């Protein structure tokens, strides 16, 4: 049995039927990591012993006849900027290379309660700042479809782990496309929920008004299951929405007429420039398929798309410059000694942060400085309003939007050298949804020259259901949504 290619709900059934134990399942995944991860480098930390202990506990509970959640005993990867009590949480930064949080992130606590087995902490661009998982203090993660290609970023480790069968699902965080872009590059599903839907407590902040935790999964049922587990109000997080969580699985109907009459907007700005022919072709096939299934696809316009990306850049750097100020060598993390305390700050931060992080901090410092505040910061906040208005107008006409998740498939690492704006360019399709706080889902749709293509669905605030519904309909009616990196695994 190829346990590592199965979905969570398939594994869950095997566990329930006692065809396999959690321990065996965890061992199988650990073995898979042992075989694969020296090449892929998806993990910063593999929590082998703890995972086995957790799996044994779930097995005992199952044997004891306890009623278990569907996620019980399922091995998962959690991105290394989400706090795990007693397990190193490094943000892939030298600054936090030995940091052990005293408490779990809220989402981590919810998953532990559901019985999920933490198998390891996934690599990312340092503090989430990057688009290739090449800006990590750890070795660069590689793309399971082509080891010379990047897995995307910042959540490349989590995406690669799920794609390569090193974890059944994963959690990452999305500030500007950090879940959706790597999901697209690695051929898995990634969702950035509505801002505030998933608690941020324990997510190590990059840009607080944009950051959102979300899942990587292999199919839509899995996604709905994870989402239901992690969504919902947290009284300890001021940005957490006070909202009932719906059972997302109800959005997954097998009625093939389910999207009949649904209006899907195609924002022309996303299709205008730079979409590679391979991506454009797959996208067109998806549109045709959706129309066949009864949806109506119409062109809409989001006129501030380009300037929204610049606003996102200004705001994310500004917030990062403030959020990353706490790393000063006093209470935790790296300290590099200096002759006085300010000199210690300079040395600690100069040596603790990597180059992309330092650039973001300095740019953010510039953006917030009183001399430039109005030109950059206030102006970016106003553009944020324009961007939200664009989406609001589009959603008056349509139920959701369909765009490419990325303009190209995963680039080769060698093609990326030295572009300081790589992050903005690589995330240009995904940034506006963060800026507007909207839910957005990246769904694999076929291959282009052997590499996965991702399409993106963007919905109204707290309307994850529509995204799940459309994606599920495509999943059920095509064979395009589960590209496999290694055909040998599919026997």
């Amino acid at each position, binding site marked *: 049995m190829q346990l590592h290619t199965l979905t969570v709900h398939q594994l869950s059934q095997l566990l329930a039927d006692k065809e396999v134990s959690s321990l065996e399942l965890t061992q199988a995944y650990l073995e898979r990591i042992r075989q694969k991860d020296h090449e892929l480098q998806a993990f910063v930390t593999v929590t082998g012993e703890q995972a086995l202990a957790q799996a044994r506990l779930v097995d005992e509970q199952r044997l004891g006849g306890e009623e278990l959640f569907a996620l019980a005993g399922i091995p998962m990867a959690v991105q290394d900027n989400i706090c795990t009590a007693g397990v190193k949480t490094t943000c892939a930064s030298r600054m936090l290379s030995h940091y052990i949080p005293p408490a779990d992130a809220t989402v981590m606590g919810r998953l532990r309660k559901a019985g999920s087995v933490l198998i390891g902490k996934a690599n990312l661009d340092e503090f989430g700042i990057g688009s290739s998982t090449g800006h990590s203090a750890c070795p660069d993660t590689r793309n399971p479809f082509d080891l010379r290609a990047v897995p995307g970023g910042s959540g490349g480790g989590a995406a690669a782990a799920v794609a390569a069968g090193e974890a059944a699902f994963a959690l990452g965080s999305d500030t500007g496309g950090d879940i959706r872009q790597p999901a697209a590059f690695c051929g898995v599903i990634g969702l950035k929920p509505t801002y505030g839907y998933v608690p941020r407590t324990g997510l190590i902040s990059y840009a607080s008004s944009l950051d959102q935790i979300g899942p990587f999964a292999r199919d839509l049922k899995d996604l709905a299951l994870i989402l239901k587990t992690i969504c919902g109000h947290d009284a300890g997080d001021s940005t957490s929405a006070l909202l009932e969580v719906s059972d997302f699985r109800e959005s997954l109907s097998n009625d093939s007429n389910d999207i009949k009459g649904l209006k899907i907007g195609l924002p022309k700005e996303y299709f205008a420039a730079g979409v590679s022919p391979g991506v454009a072709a797959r996208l067109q096939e998806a549109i045709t398929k959706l129309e066949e299934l009864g949806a109506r696809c119409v062109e809409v316009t989001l006129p501030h798309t380009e300037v929204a990306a610049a606003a996102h850049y200004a705001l994310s750097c500004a917030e990062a410059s403030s959020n990353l100020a706490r790393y000063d060598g006093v209470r935790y993390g790296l300290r590099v000694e200096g002759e006085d305390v300010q000199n210690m700050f300079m040395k600690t931060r100069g040596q603790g942060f990597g180059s992309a992080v330092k650039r973001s901090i300095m740019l953010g410092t510039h953006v917030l400085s009183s001399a430039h505040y109005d030109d950059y910061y206030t102006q970016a906040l106003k*553009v944020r309003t324009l961007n939200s208005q664009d989406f609001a107008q589009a959603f008056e006409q349509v139920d959701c939007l369909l765009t490419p998740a990325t303009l190209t498939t995963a680039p080769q690492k060698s093609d990326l050298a030295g572009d300081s704006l790589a992050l903005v360019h690589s995330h240009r399709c995904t940034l506006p949804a963060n800026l507007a706080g909207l839910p957005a889902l990246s769904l694999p749709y076929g291959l282009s020259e052997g590499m996965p293509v991702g399409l993106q669905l963007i919905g109204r605030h707290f309307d994850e259901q529509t995204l799940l519904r459309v994606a599920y309909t495509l999943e059920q009616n095509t064979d395009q949504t589960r590209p496999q990196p290694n055909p040998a695994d599919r026997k």
Partner: protein
Amino acid sequence: MKITPKDVERLAFVSRLELTDEEKTAYTRSLQESLSYLDLLKQADTTAVEAAERVLPMINLFREDKAQPGLASELVFANAPEEEDGAFKVPRIL
């Protein structure tokens, strides 16, 4: 605007980042690129547009004034670079 090595030095100091000479040179170029890109913001007509520091309306999330025990001492200092007598030790201030 034009970014000079002096500007980079000032930004690095305000951000408390000690940079090597090579870094200063590299950042002078890359911050220039970034700021030129941000000039795109000026193209947007934002007259009569409100600034939105957050995307969803959020008001009045409160907690009641109740004291709770803090972190256990071993957790407080678990990650501390230097501890002395129950406090975080730092080099001289001035």
